[in-house]
């Protein structure tokens, strides 16, 4: 097996692990905040429904966390197993946030264990609520630190290379690369947005499946409001990400937009197919690319032709970019209609097809997350560390990666199916109506 081959195999395995892990990671970062908000609303309003909502979400959440721990350990170890040359170099410069991520997760895991096993153990509900704060903080901090590492791969800094040796290493400078603000904000807001949409999907699905309980209506409205807030935040941050790319990784933006010639008044190309350098059948929005890149129609956007051919990403990332942006826009629009419609009592909000669209929004948000990560990773190619190390140079020399692909593919299929089966079985066996009735009778028993 050749050198190129192991690099390709390593890429496939990494792609598989990350694509699978990001589902659990996104839920892991976003859902604690949702549980927190629901529990807080429940305590403030003294509404049993919101408390139970938090409790039921927590039960499902812990299952996704446990699988996320497994896939997270896998990707953590695979970084060194599949990309030893890269990790050897990166370890010298960017090990600090990786190390801090472990602490953040440590912190989260400890308090998650405590939170989960202490329901009703405290007289004062607020004490139990406080245990969730470190869980949410730890989860967010883990994602921030990991995103910092990814930012470094896109915009490396904080070291010099002298005769092939790394010198003048500054771990802090490496941590705060120009990619950090937009990337971290984007990862966090999309995690919150996606988690809100997924929980909304579940509530909408229960309502469609015959349960007309007010519990689900409360859940749906709460999550859709949160989804709207974070979709709008995501759109704004997305705009800043465009400006970051134009400044620091212009080849990525140019490839995403099929923009070949440097120039002002650049148009945004949506979808279509490429014929030579000419997009066909595409939706063209005049000036939009210049505005995305620089905020003004006259902004000059650097084109692909300014780069050596072997240093530009593949052009099919255009579709990943379009998928992410289109879904993001749709979800912001949809949640806006939902929330305004619910407030003003529009009848469409309660219609069946609209509910089905709500069910669809969770999976769509997750597809947008996948498209976004594929876009940022493939869009960095051919580099693993932009400008310093190509992906093929970072890969392992081991010839057994192909076998590992088969092994891990099987594992992820089993874990994925297991998650779905266990979650649906758990909630089916203990529907909310049953649990509410049970809690009601327990209370009655205490009082008599």
């Amino acid at each position, binding site marked *: 097996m050749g050198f190129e081959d192991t690099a390709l195999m390593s890429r496939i395995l990494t792609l598989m692990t990350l694509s699978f892990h990001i589902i659990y990671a996104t839920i892991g970062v976003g859902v604690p905040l949702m549980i927190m908000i629901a529990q807080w609303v429940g305590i403030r309003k003294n509404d049993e429904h919101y408390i139970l909502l938090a409790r039921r979400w*927590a*039960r499902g959440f*812990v*299952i996704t*966390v*446990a699988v996320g*721990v*497994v896939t997270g*350990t*896998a990707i*953590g*170890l695979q970084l*060194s*197993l*599949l990309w*030893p*040359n890269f*990790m*050897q170099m990166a*370890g*010298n410069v960017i*090990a*600090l946030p*990786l*190390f*801090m991520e*472990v*602490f953040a*997760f*440590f*912190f989260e*895991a*400890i*308090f998650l*264990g*405590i*939170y*989960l*096993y202490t*329901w009703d*153990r405290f007289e004062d509900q607020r004490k139990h609520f406080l245990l969730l704060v*470190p869980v949410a903080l730890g989860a967010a901090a883990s994602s921030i630190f990991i995103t910092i590492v990814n930012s470094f791969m896109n915009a490396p800094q904080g070291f010099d290379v002298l005769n092939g040796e*790394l010198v003048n290493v500054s*771990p802090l400078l490496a941590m705060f690369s120009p990619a950090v603000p937009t990337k971290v904000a984007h990862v966090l807001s999309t995690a919150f947005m996606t988690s809100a949409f997924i929980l909304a999907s579940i509530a909408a699905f229960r309502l469609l499946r015959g349960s007309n309980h007010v519990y689900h209506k409360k859940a749906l409205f709460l999550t859709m409001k949160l989804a709207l807030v974070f979709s709008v935040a995501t759109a704004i941050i997305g705009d800043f990400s465009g400006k970051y790319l134009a400044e620091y990784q212009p080849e990525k933006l140019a490839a995403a937009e099929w923009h070949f010639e440097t120039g002002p008044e650049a148009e945004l190309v949506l979808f279509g197919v490429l014929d030579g350098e000419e997009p066909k059948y595409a939706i063209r929005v005049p000036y939009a690319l210049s505005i995305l890149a620089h905020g003004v129609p006259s902004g000059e956007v650097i084109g692909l032709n300014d780069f050596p051919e072997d240093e530009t990403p593949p052009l099919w990332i255009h579709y990943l970019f379009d998928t992410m942006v289109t879904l993001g826009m749709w979800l912001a629009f949809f949640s806006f209609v939902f929330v305004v419609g619910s407030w003003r009592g529009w009848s469409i909000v309660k219609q069946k097809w609209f509910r089905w669209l709500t069910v669809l929004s969770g999976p769509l948000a997750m597809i947008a997350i996948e498209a976004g990560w594929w876009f940022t990773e493939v869009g960095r190619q051919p580099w693993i560390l932009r400008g310093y190390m190509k992906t093929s140079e970072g890969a*392992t*020399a*081991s010839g*057994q*990666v192909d076998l*590992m692909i088969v*092994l891990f593919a099987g*594992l992820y299929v089993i*874990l994925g199916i*297991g*998650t779905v089966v*266990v*979650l649906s*079985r*758990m909630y089916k*066996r203990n529907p909310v109506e049953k649990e509410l009735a049970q809690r009601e009778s327990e209370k009655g028993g205490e009082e008599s």
Partner: protein
Amino acid sequence: MTLEIIGISVLWLFLFLYVIVASIDFGAGFFNAYSAFSDKQHILTGIIQRYLSPVWEVTNVFFVFFFVGIIGFFPQTAFYYGTTLLVPASLALILLAVRGSYYAFATYGAKIDHRGYIYMYGLSGLLLPAALSPVLAISEGGFMRLEGGQPSLDYWALFTSPLMWSIVVLSLAAVLYISAVFLTWYAHKAGDVKATQLVRKYALVWAGPTIITATGIIFELRGHNPEHYASLLDLWWMFALSFLLFLGTVFLIWKKRNYGLAFILLVGQFFTAFFAYGASHYPYLLYPHLTIYDSFTNESMAIALIIAFIAGLGLLLPSLYLLFRLFLFDKDYVKGKSDYHA
């Protein structure tokens, strides 16, 4: 004390903590499966669910801490160990997945009580140390070849090496022994007489094999790596101390007294042996290719990591204390009188 020594000591300490907490976890799963197999089922299930489920993720982080930390402090290990360990480490990951999914699916989730799952979970507890411990054999040198500047593992040499197999057997015996001693204490605290009797018996059964294989490895090393053997002998007093602590544990378990102290002595026994072994390995991370000095990261990164470590520890220790207070030292919880699971 140099930065290199501080770095390796921190990592070694966390690896030690992982060995202890993971052994408890692995062994408990095996005993549980074994009692299911021999129809003494459910004697241990309650204990496992009460203690292991809340702390499982924490156990796993000790492992992650070690392999992320070693890349941070000694980035060159990524090149040597990363390249050669692809297959064994991937297998270990799959086994970890079996365990993680058991907690996720069987104890947190729908409470699947399928026997096959219990057996798989139990078996993974034995296979994991068997998959991880050969790394210690590899670090002794002689199992890695450099071909065109790229390291690769000599599987034939490894699998025919008595040293590797003794280390595997020791890891299995130690896992079962550590776990049984801990569970004796925990079951006793829980006031579960049946479970205490059962695990106490296991503790006594596995004490012998642990000490015999541990001694055996020292003699294996004499032939395999004389340099390491010589420095081991220089530290004979630490191993002697470790042996005395071992006798103390066995005595207390035998006499059915003071199980808590017995477990503390056991931790002391493994601590002294583990650090004596580690110190005698100095300065090599991998004979003869890699020492802690030539693989060390730059000074500014090392200082940053140590500062982050101290800050992180300031956050972790109180949290760990809270965790253990609630699940290990809370009498009502341990006895299973209170169930507050979400």
